[in-house]
C-alpha cells in the first residue's frame, strides 16, 4: 500500500467518509502539534474572568478558574487521542493474538481462552474500570492498561469468530495438509484475510475507549489534575452548564466530533470494501 493508492482510496470515499477522514486527520494533527501552538500554558490563570465568552484574546473563552479553554483543549486532545490509540492497539493485539491461537490451536486452548474471555466480558466494562482504578490508583500507564484489558474480550470475540470461520476454508486446509506450522497458518493464511473487518472493529473500539476515558475522567477517576483530557475538561466545567459556558460546550463538541468522525470514516471505508 503506497501513498498514491491511499490517496486514490480516499478520493473514492463517499462524502460522509471524506468528512470523517477530515475530522480524523484534524484531530491527529491537533494531538501531535496542539501543545506547541497553544497560546497559553494549559495550567496558567490567564483570564480574570471565569466562564468568559469568546473573545479575540481567548478564542474559546475561559474556564471555571479563568484558564484559557483553547489551550487546555489543545493539550487535552493529546491525552485523549494518544491514550486511546495506545489502549486500542494493546487491546487489539492481545485480543486478536488470542483469537488466532484459539482458531489454529487445539480445541482445549480455544475452550480455555473463550471461557476466560466470557468471564471477563460478563463484568460491565465501566464498573470493572472503576473498581481497578479505585484499587490501584490512576496513573497514566495503569489507566491505559486497564482500558486496554477492558476491551480485549470484545475484540477477541469478533476476531475469533472471523478466524475460526477462515481457518475452516480450503486454503487453510491445503496449508495444513502441506505440513505448515500453526504460526504460519495463523499469521500468513488467516490473519491477512481478517484485517479489513478487524480494522472496522478496532475503529469502533477506539470510539468506545474515547468515551470510556472521557466517562472515567468525568467521574474523576481518569487523568488527575493538572493533566486533563477532553472528558475531564467537561467535568471540571460542569458548574458552567447552567450559563451555557463555552468552556463546557467546546470539549464536549470536541469529543463528539472525534468519535463521529472516526465512525463516519469506518462506515464509509468498510462499505467501500464490501463491494
Amino acid at each position, binding site marked *: 500500500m503506497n501513498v498514491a493508492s491511499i490517496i486514490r482510496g480516499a478520493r473514492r470515499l463517499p462524502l460522509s467518509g471524506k468528512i470523517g477522514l477530515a475530522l480524523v486527520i484534524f484531530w491527529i494533527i491537533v494531538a501531535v502539534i496542539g501543545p506547541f501552538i497553544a497560546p497559553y500554558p494549559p495550567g496558567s490563570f490567564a483570564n480574570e474572568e471565569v466562564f468568559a465568552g469568546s473573545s479575540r484574546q481567548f478564542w474559546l473563552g475561559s474556564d471555571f478558574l479563568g484558564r484559557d479553554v483553547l489551550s487546555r483543549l489543545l493539550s487535552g486532545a493529546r491525552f485523549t487521542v494518544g491514550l486511546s490509540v495506545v489502549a486500542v492497539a494493546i487491546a487489539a493485539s492481545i485480543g486478536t493474538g488470542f483469537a488466532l491461537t484459539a482458531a489454529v490451536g487445539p480445541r482445549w486452548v480455544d475452550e480455555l481462552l473463550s471461557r476466560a474471555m466470557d468471564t471477563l466480558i460478563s463484568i460491565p466494562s465501566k464498573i470493572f474500570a472503576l473498581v481497578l482504578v479505585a484499587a490501584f490508583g490512576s496513573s497514566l500507564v495503569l489507566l491505559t492498561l486497564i482500558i486496554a484489558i477492558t476491551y480485549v474480550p470484545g475484540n477477541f470475540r469478533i476476531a475469533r469468530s472471523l478466524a475460526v470461520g477462515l481457518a475452516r*476454508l*480450503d*486454503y487453510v*486446509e*491445503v496449508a*495444513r*495438509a*502441506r*505440513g*505448515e506450522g500453526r504460526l504460519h497458518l495463523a499469521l*500468513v*493464511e488467516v490473519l*491477512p*484475510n481478517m484485517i479489513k473487518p478487524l480494522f472496522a472493529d478496532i475503529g469502533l473500539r477506539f470510539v468506545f475507549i474515547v468515551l470510556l476515558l472521557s466517562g472515567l475522567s468525568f467521574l474523576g477517576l481518569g487523568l488527575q489534575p493538572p493533566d486533563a483530557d477532553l472528558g475531564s475538561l467537561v467535568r471540571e466545567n460542569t458548574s458552567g452548564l447552567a450559563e451555557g459556558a463555552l468552556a463546557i460546550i467546546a470539549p464536549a463538541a470536541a469529543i463528539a466530533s472525534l468519535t463521529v468522525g472516526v465512525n463516519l470514516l469506518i462506515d464509509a471505508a468498510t462499505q467501500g470494501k464490501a463491494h
Partner: protein
Amino acid sequence: MEAQHVDVRNLCVTVRRPDGSPLRIVDDVSFSIARGEVLALIGESGSGKTTIALSLMGYARIGASISGDITVGDATLDGTGKATLAAQRGHRITYVAQSAAAAFNPSRRVIEQVIEPALIHRTATAAEARAHAVTLFEALALPNPATIGSRYPHELSGGQLQRLMAAMALITRPDLVIFDEPTTALDVTTQVEVLQAFRKVVREQGATGVYVSHDLAVVAQMADQILVLNRGTVREQNAVRAVLETPADDYTKTLLAAARPVIKAAAPIAAVGKPLLSIEGINAGYGSVDRNGRAAHPVLTDVSLQIGRGAAVGVIGESGSGKSTVARVVAGLLVPTAGTVSLDGQPLAASLKGRTREELRRIQIVFQNADVALNPAHSVGEILGRVLRFYHCTSGAALTSRVAELLDLIKLPAAIADRRCDELSGGQKQRVNLARALAAQPDVILCDEVTSALDTVVREAILELLAELRRDLGVAYLFISHDIATVKALCDEIVVLYKGTRVESGLRDTYAAPPFHPYTDLLISSVPELRTDWLSGVGSQGKVPFAHLPESADLCRFLPRCPVAIAGRCDVSLPPLRTMAAGNAVLCHRTEAELAGEFA
C-alpha cells in the same frame, strides 16, 4: 405477424467498469417465445444468460441498466402496456432459483412459503391456494403430496426442495416461469427425477418458460427452442433438434463437443507391480469416536483401493457417498478409525503430525472450489513460491524462474504471478490450484471434484491439462467426481462409492457395458444424453421393492433404492463381493448372469 407471448427486442444490459466507462454485458439480444413453449438460454458463465432471464422480470442487478423492448403478456419493461414487468414479479412472472435450499426460509413450514405468492398477490384464498399446492405437489411427483407441505425445509432433500420451489413459482398460474439452472446443484440421479417432474408439470400446466442452463443435454430434455449465448451476444437460435443435430455456429459446435469429453493426450500404460499408494480397509467418520472405534457419524466403511505409479483412479458417487472423505483420509486431514494408508509399501501415519515433510510432499490435494482453495490475500507467485520454499528450499532467482516454469506448465502467462487470485477467471484459478500441487513435485495428486464447478468448455480444457501432466510428469491421480463422463474420460480405473461402501471397482472399459452394480447402472443411465427423447426413456425400470426399509449397516446399503433387490436374499444378509468375467468387482447378491440380464 401475430404478437408473441414473450417478445424481446434489442435488449441491452449495461454496467459501469470500475473506471466509469460503460460495458455491455448483454448486447442487442432479440427473441420471442410462443405461449406454452419453453426457450432455453444456454452459454458459459459470463455469457449473460441469467442477466437476460432477470431482465424479463424488469430486474437488473445493482449498477446495471436495461434498455430495449420487452413484452411479457400485457406487461412491458417501461410500463407502456398495461403494467410494468417489475410489478408482475412473483405473480405473472415467477422465478425458480438454482439453490432452493438457500431460497427457503428455514424457520417456516414449506406450504406457507409455497402459497405465499398467491396470498400476497391475492390470486386465491388460503384454502384454494393450499388445494392448488397439493395438486402441484402431486404433479411434481413429490412423496405424500397432502402432508409434505407441513414439513420444514431442513427435513427435505435438495431435489424435493427444488420441486417445491417450482410449485411456488406455479402457484399463481403465471404467464412466464424462469428456471435459473434449477438442477445444476443436484446429483445426477436426483436431477433425472426433478427434470421429469418439471417437464410433466410444465406440459400439464401449459406454462411458458425460460430455462437457463449451461448443460446442453439437460436443455435438450426441457426446451422447445434454444438460444445459444456467448459474451452477451446471440450465437444461434433454433429448435432444439436442429441445434443438436445440425449446429450452424462454431461456438455451438464447441459446446456440443465439450458436452462429451474426449481426452486427446494419450494416457500412458499404468505400470504394473507394487502399487504406489494403497488404502486398506479404511473406516472413517466425523464426530467423537466411541469405545468400539466407531465415529459418531460414520462415513466410510471398509474402503480399499490401490493406485499404481502414474495411474489415474477415479472415485465416483453422489453427494454423501464419502468420496471427499477418502481424499481427506489419504491426505492425513482426517484420522481414520480403522485401516491404513501406505505409500510405496510404507504405512503412513494416520495424522498429519506423524508424517514427515517428504511424505507430505509426495501426496498433494487439490480442492474443488478454487475460489476458497486459494488464499485471496496472496498473489499467485506467493502461493506457488511458498510451496517451493517449504518443500524444496528454493529461493531468489531460482524461485522466480521455477514459478514461471510452473505457470508455463499450466499454460498461463508468467506475468500472472503478480496478480491476486480474485482477478483471475474460474478456469485460471483452477489451473493455479493445480499448479500449487505440482509445485511440490508430488507422486500422487488427490483431485477432489476439481472440474465440477467449471463450465463444460473450461472443464474439457482442465481435463486435457490433467491428462497431459500425467503423460509428461508421470504423476498419479486419485480423481474424485460425481460425473461419470468426466471420470471415464480421464481415469483408467474407477471405484464406485455408495454411502461410504465400495460397491464396484474395475478398469474403465468394464463400465462400458453390463454387468454392473445396480447403483452403477443408475449412475450411468442418469447422465443426460444429447437427444430430446432421452428423458422419456429413463427411470422406467419399475418399482423399487424395498423402498420402505431404512438403510442399514448390516445389509446392502443400496437396498432401499435397488430396483432388482431379491426378497429373502438382499434383505437378510450383507452382499458378497463378486468378480465378473470382465474383471470388475461388484458388491451384490445378484450373480453375473443376473446382472447382465437385468441391465442388458
